[in-house]
């Protein structure tokens, strides 16, 4: 509950109220917004101090920092919203180093006229996501831009965490012979978003897979501390992540289409629109690369975790001076899985 209840006069109207320029001006209106919305929702010892910064002891070990901006449209979609996305996204970026995520900063750029009801829904969603991820949102910023100059709300989150000793996860560590393991079904998030876009509207029960993966990563690192690479395939899909690994490690990757888990409805939606699930965004999946000897243990650890139930070995790292990612198709032939060109657009042809 707000410590300064009463000094603002009327409480914020979260049902009918809208963001005004004053909410970003640094005065009483902004203080009220911070107090009655952000501090109330995130509620932790750092925010309650209402300083411009958060102070915490630096643990022993190596620190990790990551940042992400969120501009998704629509703001609310099946399975999540821009708020939960912004928490999970940065938590995941930190977690992909093997680090335990600790603290988040959150900046909001709000458009004048944005409904307070929607903002409250988003912030509470962020708070819930942060609690699940066991991170605290310790500091933040709010700005307001004139009507027409923002898409409702843009959120940037920055996170820090600490990496345990002996863990050296980095994209350039893949070696020929390594196993490539995917934590679950691909394309869920992208299809969930697209189903809400006008002109493409179709009905589906697909929900975004947005989730914090730090728990899964912790279980994986505990079982196999020597994991070589970890990344969560977001925009650009699995194909992009594999190409990034191939380029940074200077290797080739060969995957098998049959091994890649895809929900039937995701597959069907992609057929409708002429999209390739390999390039469709995910928000709650990861790709791991480890030695062939470690693969069975890692796979077992992943499958034991709720977010890794459908984990599967999808391919192998190869020696390839061209750094191609290739796939054996379900038909038995071969094709390349190239870098994404431009935006993935639906097609009629």
């Amino acid at each position, binding site marked *: 509950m707000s410590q300064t209840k009463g000094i603002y006069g009327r409480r914020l109207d979260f049902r009918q109220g809208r963001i005004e320029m004053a909410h970003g001006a640094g005065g009483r209106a902004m203080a009220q917004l911070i107090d009655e919305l952000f501090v109330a929702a995130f509620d932790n010892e750092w925010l309650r101090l209402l300083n411009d910064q958060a102070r915490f002891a630096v643990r022993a070990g190596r620190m990790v920092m990551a940042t992400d901006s969120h501009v998704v449209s629509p703001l609310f979609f099946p399975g999540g919203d821009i708020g939960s996305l912004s928490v999970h996204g940065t938590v995941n970026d930190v977690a992909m180093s093997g680090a335990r995520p600790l603290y988040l900063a959150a900046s909001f750029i709000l458009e004048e006229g944005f409904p307070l009801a929607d903002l409250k829904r988003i912030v509470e969603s962020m708070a819930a996501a942060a609690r699940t991820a066991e991170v605290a949102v310790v500091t933040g910023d709010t700005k307001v831009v004139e009507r027409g100059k923002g898409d409702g709300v843009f959120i940037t989150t920055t996170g820090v965490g600490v990496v345990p000793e002996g863990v050296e996860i980095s994209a350039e560590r893949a070696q020929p012979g390594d196993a490539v393991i995917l934590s679950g079904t691909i394309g869920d998030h992208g299809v969930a978003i697209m189903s809400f876009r006008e002109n493409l509207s179709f009905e589906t029960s697909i929900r975004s897979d947005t989730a914090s993966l730090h728990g899964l990563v912790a279980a994986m690192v505990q079982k196999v501390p020597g994991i070589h690479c970890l990344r969560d395939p977001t925009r650009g899909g699995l194909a992009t992540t594999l190409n990034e690994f191939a380029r940074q490690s200077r290797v080739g990757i060969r995957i098998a289409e049959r091994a890649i888990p895809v929900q039937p409805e995701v597959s069907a939606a992609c057929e409708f629109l002429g999209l390739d699930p390999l390039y469709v965004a995910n928000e709650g999946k990861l790709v791991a690369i480890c030695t062939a000897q470690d693969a069975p243990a890692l796979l077992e650890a992943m499958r034991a975790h709720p977010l890794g139930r459908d984990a599967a070995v999808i391919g192998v790292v190869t020696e390839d001076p061209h750094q191609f990612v290739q796939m054996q198709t379900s038909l038995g032939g071969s094709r390349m899985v190239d870098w994404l060109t431009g935006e993935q657009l639906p097609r009629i*042809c």
Partner: protein
Amino acid sequence: MCLAIPALVVKRLEGDEALIDAGGVRKRISLALVPEAAEGDYVIVHVGYALSRLDPAEAERTLALFAQAAADAGEQGA
């Protein structure tokens, strides 16, 4: 050159519209070009319009043809 997929006509709606289902994904499309399509039929859908009905008997026959070609190959030793 035309991306089209087979879909089940789930429900005829007002006018020429229908709700179709392909692999669990549902969408409203137009039956203006295949007005005789009935609920339970499969149609080929392209850019929001059904283009023709799919004949299940012919589909079975074609699959049998594939299996025949495969069986012939099998007979002679793969």
